């Protein structure tokens, strides 16, 4: 049977081209790999290579023809044992092949009314488990709570291991992994060289290979060297593989401004990671949440970015004395109930928001404080329920204002809570500058409780 040779597309965007030259003539023998013709587009000249073998029976489009549509039959090839002279052009030789609905790359792109995507599935996080009455509490630092969470999960599941710079023999640059090497040994507590891109990739690969790595970045500033693996490898592969490739990994470490370490070591990456589908992003504030969410993160089948805060490591909070304190991912926590204004925050900002709420209470303003805890998926229900109650909302975020978590919460309030708003939503953030070193300038640049108080009063029209 004769084979139709069609005008090929040479790039994803090519629709037509010039048939510049025939390098084979009618009657020529063609073998696989022969260059038959040259085709020009505005970008390049390409060689049209034979795949099938036979005799070039008929040339249907003469050389020099311009605007030849992709898919047009340009020649006929007679197969082995076929009489080339008897090959005829197909009935509609000069008609391009139509784009059949349901086939081909351009399907759905040019429908008159546009296409509508299915609804984004709504997350429905579980509530925190009840703490049984009579449970005792112990004051534990955030640092120890994180360590305890890792240790408990390592005891529970031998696939869990920790790797990172100085995590083992040095006991952690910020002592978060203190004692783990002693208990679990060097196979499961692995000191890496200073090589973030490499070990983030190795950790991600180990997760794909069935282990459950906890990868510590000494700080998230250095994870920028590794962000390719966090996003392109860890976050996207399950989707790209149609659900085959699991990547249960936790990337953890301190995030946000520390103290007087300058611009390169002081940045909040929450908004960066929270913008990426395929990632879970957690940023707890107190010890109980740090522990309960770290345990949940390690058990999650999905890649988790776990953002800690160096300035909070040393603070102590009550942690329930439970054998297995695991908290739900994706659920915000109401830290303080109030009726006049909602302050949404996360991580170190929560402490400032609580301070501000105290001050506001003294001035007769009853503020509700919400700790997001998880930045992705965002618990919009809790935010909107609070807004419906207080009708006023501000966001307190230790980070830059532009394209921030604050921006996202504001968008949610506009889109889904507009009818409940009695005042514009305001954001209280760091100043929009790289963090300066000088003590006075640093203080000026960073969010603080008085700024939160001022914003809250403003939306209550009491400034």
């Amino acid at each position, binding site marked *: 049977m004769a084979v139709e040779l069609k005008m*090929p*597309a*040479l790039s*994803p965007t090519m629709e037509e081209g010039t048939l510049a030259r025939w390098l084979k003539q009618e009657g020529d023998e063609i073998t*696989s790999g022969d260059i038959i013709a040259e085709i020009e587009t505005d970008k*390049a*000249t390409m*060689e049209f*290579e034979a*795949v099938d073998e036979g005799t070039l029976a008929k040339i249907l489009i003469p050389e020099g023809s311009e605007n030849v549509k*992709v*898919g047009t039959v340009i020649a006929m090839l007679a197969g082995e044992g076929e009489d080339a002279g008897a090959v005829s052009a197909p009935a509609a030789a000069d008609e391009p*092949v139509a784009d059949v609905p349901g086939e*081909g*790359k*351009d399907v759905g792109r040019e429908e008159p009314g546009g296409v509508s995507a*299915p609804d*984004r*599935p709504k*997350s429905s*996080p579980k509530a925190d488990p009840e703490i049984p009455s009579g449970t005792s509490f112990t004051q534990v630092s955030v640092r120890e709570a994180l360590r305890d969470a890792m240790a408990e999960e390592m005891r529970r599941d031998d696939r869990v291991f920790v790797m990172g710079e100085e995590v*083992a023999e040095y006991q952690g640059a910020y002592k978060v992994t203190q004692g783990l090497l002693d208990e679990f*040994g*060097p196979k499961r507590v*692995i*000191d890496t*060289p200073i*090589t973030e*891109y*490499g*070990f*983030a*990739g*190795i*950790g*991600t*690969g*180990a997760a*794909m*290979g069935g*282990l459950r*790595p906890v990868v510590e970045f000494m700080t998230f500033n250095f994870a920028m060297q590794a962000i390719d693996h966090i996003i*392109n*490898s860890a976050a996207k*592969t*399950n*989707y*790209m*593989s*149609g*659900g*085959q*490739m699991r990547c249960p990994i936790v990337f953890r470490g301190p995030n946000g401004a520390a103290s007087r370490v300058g611009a390169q070591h002081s940045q909040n990456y929450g908004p960066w990671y929270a913008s990426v*589908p*395929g990632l*879970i992003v957690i940023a707890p504030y107190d010890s109980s949440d740090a522990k309960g969410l770290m345990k949940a993160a390690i058990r999650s*089948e*999905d890649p988790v970015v776990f953002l800690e805060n160096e300035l909070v490591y040393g603070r102590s909070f009550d942690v329930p004395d439970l054998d297995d304190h695991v908290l739900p*991912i994706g659920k915000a926590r109401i830290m303080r109930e109030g009726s006049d204004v909602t302050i949404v925050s996360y991580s170190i900002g929560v402490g400032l928001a609580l301070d501000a709420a105290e001050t506001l209470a003294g001035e007769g303003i009853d503020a509700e404080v919400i700790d997001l805890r998880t930045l992705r*998926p965002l618990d919009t229900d809790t935010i909107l329920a609070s807004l419906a109650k207080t009708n006023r909302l501000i966001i307190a975020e230790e980070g830059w204002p532009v394209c921030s978590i604050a921006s996202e919460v504001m968008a949610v309030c506009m889109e889904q809570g507009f009818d409940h708003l009695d005042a514009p939503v305001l954001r209280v953030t760091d100043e929009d500058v790289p963090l300066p070193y000088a003590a006075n300038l640093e203080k000026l640049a960073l969010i603080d409780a008085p700024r939160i108080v001022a914003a809250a009063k403003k939306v209550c029209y009491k400034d």
Partner: protein
Amino acid sequence: MQNARFTLRLVTASDYRDRAIPLPRGNEKTRKQALARSPKKPATQAAITSGADNTDDDFALRSLQEAHAKAPRYDASTDQMLAYYEQMLLIRRFEEKAGQLYGLGLIGGFCHLYIGQEAVAVGLQSGLQEGLDSVITGYRDHGHMLAYGIDPKVIMAELTGREAGISRGKGGSMHMFSTEHKFYGGHGIVGAQVSLGGGLALAHKYREDGGLCLAYFGDGAANQGQVYETMNMASLWQLPIVFVVENNQYAMGTAVRRSSAETEFYRRGTAFRIPGMDVNGMDVLEVRGAAEVAFKHVREGNGPVLMELNTYRYRGHSMSDPAKYRSREEVQDVREHKDPIEGLKKILLEKGKSEEDLKAIDKAIRARVAESADFAENSPEPEASELYTDVLVGEY
């Protein structure tokens, strides 16, 4: 005259004996000591993190190459050779068909063909233990999957973006996986698969399952920093990984000599005490022979090996590459004199197979590929509801 300066270096068996792999720099005495191969000092710690004995002067960077050079070609049975022939031909015909479907607009985006490089994936992967060892590669991944016996239908259907595709139409040419076959992709970021492969190897070592990871990358990816970060850790921790540089002479349009200070890629592990092997990637039996040596070394717990497979891609970097950076004669010369399929065909004919036997194989493969193309063209696209599936595994 850029092309006139180009000489394609495809190594033949006789070349090996003349080519010394440099030892680590040092004085004549250390070099001699190294050659004398004094016994290794015992490792001081047995942990996953400290297997490397990097005080050992006797680091035999050239021992594997020497072993390979002694008997470069794997002593394959006729049946084995027929199997390699079939697999290579399947890859070739599949890729030709993919090129055709791309030309018809049925395959979108980027599409990188493996034509010319078939002996590499077939030779190496035929030496792996199925169900145990893991394989990972970059975006030029169709051949590696076919070499692993993955159904051409689901690969082609992925190329056309259909529900039946191996990634359910959501990955495309560059992002295909089969965890069932321990094939871990199919990665679009140049070099990323090398550190991911390091992680797969870490998992083998952690589980003590005796498996190894085969991590392929190109001469272009060989200039990515993370490749060396991974080599360092893989050697430091003695991970069971075989780094495979598929040197097809061009990183997209840049010839190796224009991008690489050291174009002998097998030497690039020297700084990390990883033995190198320089292999003719156009001869499937030499590739398999080299694989035997490398895999044995790694399986015995000696840490990584770096193999350079010298090969050639006949087509452009991707479908939209007109390949103007090399001459037609250069390509034609390799096709005529080094083609891996023609090379094996010659051996098979010498072994008593007839032209008809081989033609019958070709015919059956053409039919199989045509069937996969029909399947890929006629299966439905994914349902719209698939848009939001598999973003996350858990529900939150």
